[in-house]
Structure formats: C-alpha cells, structure tokens
C-alpha cells in the first residue's frame, strides 16, 4: 500500500481481523500518519464494539465448589480479582520474562500508585503497589542507576535499572514497605521519590 493512498475498505477489514499479517501491518503503518483513515478505522472499531455488546459483560466461570449463583455485580468485581490471583500465582513461579512484562502483569492485577522522582537526574517515576509489595522504576534514557529503598533510616540497595528501549527500568517485589526510593548514579543522588 502506497503511503499516500488511503486505506479505503481495508479499514473495516482491519477492524474485523480479516486482513492477512502484511495487510494488517500496512494499515497500521498508514494510520500512524493519516488522521482521516485513523478515524475511519476508529469508526469500524465502534461497529465491532456494537456487535459485541450483546454478550459482553455477563461472562463468569462455573465453579463446582461454589454452587451459589453469582449476581452480575459480584461477577463484575470477581473478574479482576480472579485475574489478580492468577498473576500472583504466576509470579510465585518465576519464568524468564522481561521485567516490564512482569511489572505490567502486576499492575494490571492489583491496586497501584505512582510517584515522580525529584532531583537533577533524568525524568523518572516509580509505579508501586499500594500494599508496597512491588516497585517498578522507569527512568528516561538508557543510563543505569542504582535503586535504594528507605524504611525510616534503614537503607537497602534494591538493584539497578536495566536499559530497555528508550528507558531504563527496574522491577522488584518486596516484603518490606519503603517510604522513599533513591536513584543513584554511582555515588550521586539523581532523584528521590516519596512513597505515600
């Protein structure tokens, strides 16, 4: 597909998953720079959503050990909780997955918050579980930083950020709740984030 040529009917075919991988990739490349075709794809996606509305929200797993019929409201809350449990079980048996994948799984499955690092270093933030069970540090740029956790006056080196794309990242699960994280570039403090 020529970059200057609009995608036409491929917008609808893309939305319903009818294109082959090459056609799919061509549409994605085109809509990355064409607002008109992006909107047409968006409209086709809204049609897909309309077709899926009939059977969207009342999915629930049958559990022989729990014969009590779940209300729709209970199901709506149970689904994320079930997913969270699955994530936690998965994380108990670590596999060689990239840090950001593990972090994303943890984020999707639990309550979390985030804080910016203040300091003279690169822009950085920490995303952390509200129960302080994990911390995910993302620093702009590919420089490696040491990450320290503070619980009161006690300091613990948690690890080092690892370059990944345009950022440097560090994910850790922790049984200890920290009230402050520090980023260090060798011996220099590059940033401090307060965990609330």
């Amino acid at each position, binding site marked *: 597909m020529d970059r200057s040529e609009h995608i*036409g*009917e*491929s*917008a*609808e*075919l893309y*939305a*319903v*998953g*009818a294109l082959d991988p090459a056609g799919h990739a061509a549409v994605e490349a085109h*809509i*990355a720079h064409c*607002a008109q075709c*992006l*909107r047409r*794809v*968006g*409209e*086709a*996606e*809204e*049609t*897909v*959503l*309309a*077709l*899926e*509305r*009939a*059977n*969207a*929200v*009342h*999915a*629930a*797993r*049958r559990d022989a050990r729990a014969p009590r019929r779940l209300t729709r409201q209970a*199901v*709506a809350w149970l*689904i*994320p909780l079930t*997913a969270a449990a*699955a994530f936690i079980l998965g994380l108990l048996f670590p596999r060689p997955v990239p840090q*950001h*994948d593990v972090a*994303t*799984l943890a*984020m*999707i499955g639990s*309550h*979390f*918050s*985030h*804080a910016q690092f203040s300091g003279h270093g690169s822009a950085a933030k920490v*995303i952390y579980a509200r129960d302080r069970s994990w911390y995910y540090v993302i620093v702009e740029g590919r420089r490696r930083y040491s990450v320290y956790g503070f619980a009161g006056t006690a300091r613990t080196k948690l690890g080092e950020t690892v370059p990944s794309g345009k950022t440097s990242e560090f994910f850790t699960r922790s049984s200890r709740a920290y009230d402050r994280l520090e980023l260090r570039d060798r011996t220099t403090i590059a940033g401090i984030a307060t965990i*609330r």
Partner: protein
Amino acid sequence: MAVIFDSRTAHWASVPDESLAESFGRRDAGAYEAAYRSFGPRMRATAMRLLRDWDAANECVHDVFLYLWRKETAYSAARGSLEAFLVTCVRNRALERLRDAARGRAANEKMEVREEYVLEEDPIERERIGRAVAALTEAQAAVVQLAYYRAMTLSEVAAQLQIPVGTVKARLSAALRALRRSLIPQVDHGP
C-alpha cells in the same frame, strides 16, 4: 465514565472516558488499570465468544494490555472510542489464536467440547443486532455471518460462497458501514 486512582489526591475519582482515552494514549499506568477494570469484562467476553475457553480469553486480554504497554504509539484518542479499540484488539488476538488452533483438526474438536463458562447474552441487544444484520442485503449478511460470526478468513469465505476474494472484501466493508449506520444512529455520517 471510568474510575481512576489519582495519586495526587490519593483518591479514586470518576473521569470521563475522553480523559481516560487521552491518559491511556500517553501510557499512563493509572489509565491502564482503569481501562482494565472498566473494559476488561467486555474484552474477556468477546474473546470467550470466539474461543469458548475462559483461560484462553483471559490470556488474550492480558496479551493485549502487554502489547499496548510495550508499543508506545498503539493508541491515540483521535482514533475514537478506547473501549472499541480494546475490544477490537482482543477480538483480533482471539482470532489469531483460533486460527492457530484451527490448523489442527484435533484442536478444533477440543475447543468444541469446552463448556466451562457462562456467557450470557443481553436479549435486547441481541435482537437489535439481529435486526441490523437482517436489514443487510442477502449477500452482505452472508459474508458477515461467515467472516464475523464464524471467524472465517477471506479466502475461506470466498471458497464457501464461490465468489472472488475482492468481492468478499467489498461486501464485508459495505456491510460493516451499513451496520454502523443501523447500530450507531446518533453519529453524523456526513453528507
């Protein structure tokens, strides 16, 4: 509206879907969680309708969020509804899995006997969609049934109906636009 955790005030707050979409486009972590909570059930049900497997549907939803998280420019609010985008993404992911599995006959048979789920339908929506599909031309309705509901590839549809693939494409595209006019009547479709 979606519910999102505001770290500045440490409170949960309702935000318009438009704000959520913009935050999601910026890969804001809070927006990802809010989107998961708001749209995850519908995404899961969409995948389940195709795969008929709870665990596989869950994996599809997680795959989509992971993919989008890693791909920086996957979504922008200019595209339109975030929910529609996510539901389409998960449907496409489920189709990939379905077609992978369908390459082996045994896999197909295995999927047909899985019944460990409850997928309820909203009868009012079902009827509304049924009316919209019935309003299509017979030729368009046939390609929608095969390509959309039975998840056939364009080549399979063409073979089934004994028409060229190009004709399938044109009919499917026209059918989707007609369904949009029926199902989303409040939209200004232009002159």
